[in-house]
């Protein structure tokens, strides 16, 4: 789960990371009040989950409270298009109003879990304000990685290594130590999968500050962080995905094609998308239905898929292990009857209780297209979608 910048910087500040003065505003008037409190010279930043906000006009400088109100009025309500939002953009609902900072140097700092070693690592670079993956590709020598042994956790020398790599000394090195320690603390305390400070800056008056903050939480750990789970902003998510989640289909990702997919298991679901593409079609979604032992879950999946007007055909691919194919078949029949759908439906079943599953489909009298294997299922689904399009 992603957080907004204003939420992330509050968490960092709570763990001892210095951040510029600032607060969130939801109207132009609120932005004016905040700017007045900071002497008028502020930066107004759109609060959306996607990065690259400056490129789309989502970050504006203001020299007076009047200008701050105007800038906030322009940004709030706009559909902000950035390299990460897609062409339709993301509606802005709030802005961060923060003091303007005179920057001397910019750095990059983050903490993630490196799955290759299974340890958290601090990543830092002198190339601040840039996309770290670009830095990694072009100038990998500019990046330092400091693994944190889970047996000992963070130690001050980890921070000293980072400060040294950033070329900081004396008082600034000490300040950087506090920033690194606080960032790592925030990472562990919130069960994050990513904490990123980009840029981390040294100001012209010698302060070390987190100028921007990004925090992604581990969805699997939200059960023990009710306070953080409450920070979720559903407006930042695809409405179809939110609806799916509300219906109990948590593993759903909307895609651009026209063949809706219902599959059990994440790897098989991705493979089903791949095989559709290989057969010349385009998947409309990724959907892992999980272990189904309730036909109603199939009906819910169909509802989610049919809410997408681009969908022309549905492909059900179930390899029953824990899931039973007869329950799936019941669900397909029930969905087609209750939803009165006109879409062609291709069903491929394998595994647990297959004979019973196939019998239910056959005896339903519904125009269900069946397939014995993955390749055949994909070909039939592509054919059906093309005919219906």
């Amino acid at each position, binding site marked *: 789960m992603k957080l907004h910048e204003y939420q992330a910087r509050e968490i960092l500040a709570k763990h001892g990371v210095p951040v510029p003065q600032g607060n969130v505003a939801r109207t132009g008037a609120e932005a004016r009040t905040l700017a007045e409190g900071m002497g008028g010279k502020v930066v107004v930043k759109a609060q959306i989950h996607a990065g690259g906000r400056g490129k789309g006009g989502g970050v504006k400088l203001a020299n007076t409270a009047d200008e701050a109100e105007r800038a906030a009025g322009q940004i709030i309500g706009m559909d902000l298009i950035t390299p990460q939002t897609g062409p339709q953009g993301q509606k802005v609902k709030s802005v961060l109003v923060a003091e303007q900072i005179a920057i001397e140097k910019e750095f990059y700092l983050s903490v993630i879990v490196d799955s290759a070693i299974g340890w958290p690592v601090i990543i830092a670079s002198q190339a601040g304000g840039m996309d770290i993956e670009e830095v990694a590709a072009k100038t990998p020598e500019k990046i330092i990685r400091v693994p944190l042994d889970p047996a000992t956790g963070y130690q001050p020398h980890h921070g000293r290594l980072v400060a040294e790599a950033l070329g900081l000394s004396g008082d600034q090195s000490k300040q950087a130590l506090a920033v690194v320690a606080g960032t790592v603390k925030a990472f562990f305390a919130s069960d994050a999968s990513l904490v990123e400070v980009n840029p981390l800056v040294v100001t012209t008056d010698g302060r070390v500050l987190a100028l921007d903050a990004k925090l992604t939480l581990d969805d699997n750990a939200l059960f023990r962080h009710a306070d953080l789970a409450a920070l979720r902003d559903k407006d930042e998510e695809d409405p179809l995905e939110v609806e799916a989640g509300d219906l109990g289909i948590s593993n759903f990702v909307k895609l651009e094609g026209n063949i809706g997919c219902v599959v059990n298991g994440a790897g098989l679901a991705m493979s089903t998308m791949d095989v559709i593409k290989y057969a010349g079609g385009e998947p409309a979604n*990724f959907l*892992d239905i999980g272990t189904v032992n309730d036909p109603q879950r199939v009906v819910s999946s169909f509802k989610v898929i049919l809410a997408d007007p681009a969908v022309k055909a549905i492909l059900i691919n179930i390899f029953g292990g824990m899931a039973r194919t007869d329950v799936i078949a019941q669900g397909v029949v029930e969905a087609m009857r209750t939803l009165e759908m006109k879409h062609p439906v291709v069903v491929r079943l394998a595994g647990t209780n297959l004979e019973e599953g196939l019998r239910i489909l056959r005896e339903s009298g519904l125009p269900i297209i069946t397939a014995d294997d993955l390749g055949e299922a994909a070909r039939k689904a592509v054919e059906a979608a093309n005919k219906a399009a």
Partner: protein
Amino acid sequence: MAVLVDENTRLLVQGITGGEGSQHARRSIAYGTNVVAGVTPGRGGQKFDDTVPVFDTVAEAVRETGANVSIIYVPAPFAADAILEAMDAGVALVVCITEGMPTLDMVTVKRALRGSATRLIGPNCPGLITPRTKTRVGIMPGDIFTPGFTGLISRSGTLVYEGVAQLTNLGIGQTTCIGVGGDPVIGTTQKEALELLNHDPETKAVVLQGEIGGTAEQEAAAYIKHFMTKPVIAFIAGSTAPPGRRMGHAGAIIAGNQGTAAAKKQALADAGATIVETPAEIGLTTLRVLRERGLL
């Protein structure tokens, strides 16, 4: 031979009285697996289905029954504790089926396992199976497997079934099939699973089913290039997945160029593995390779 589980496996089920635990304990017994004990705190002294003794702790179960492999079905918030309990009791192989473990819990567990005598498979995995000895330590449908000389490694559960069903339909049997798990941090990596199958005299070829996200397939590729003496047939799921989105598995998110299907296929092809282009042809590609190498 086979690897990790065989006729010597004495299986302990942690969470044997729960919904999934009981269902799969029954299926493993029916398949022919030696289930010697169950653990559910507070249920010690009972018998599961009138036959399998239930204990309060893993330590007691091991002491009383000589269990040497444990399978874990407990809910995600308690999974780390369950794995560490099995490790502390000296269980040699622990298989964690549980989905949804917090990543930092696994970070702690993996560190604790280092230097211990315990190997972990999973979490978020379907387990593993050796068809010849009828040893099912997992949740897979047993009837699709058939004994043979091809090993299989997969990050995803149902994709194990898909791959295996294609192999079995073409008459290609399996030594041991291992679902390593779909999480970012797992106990046994694809590379380590390859290493086990490479050293198994019974295994003549390996099907490797990876997916997008992370660099585990690149590490497997490096092992193949330098050490693998057997043909590897590799499929990578997620060629069509958009970047930055989590595809069900927490580990299946493309971040950076390393995580893409294209990068993984390239690394594996460069290492000498045969790449399967479409998941519909995992079996057919394996058949072709086995024939080319004179193994069939």
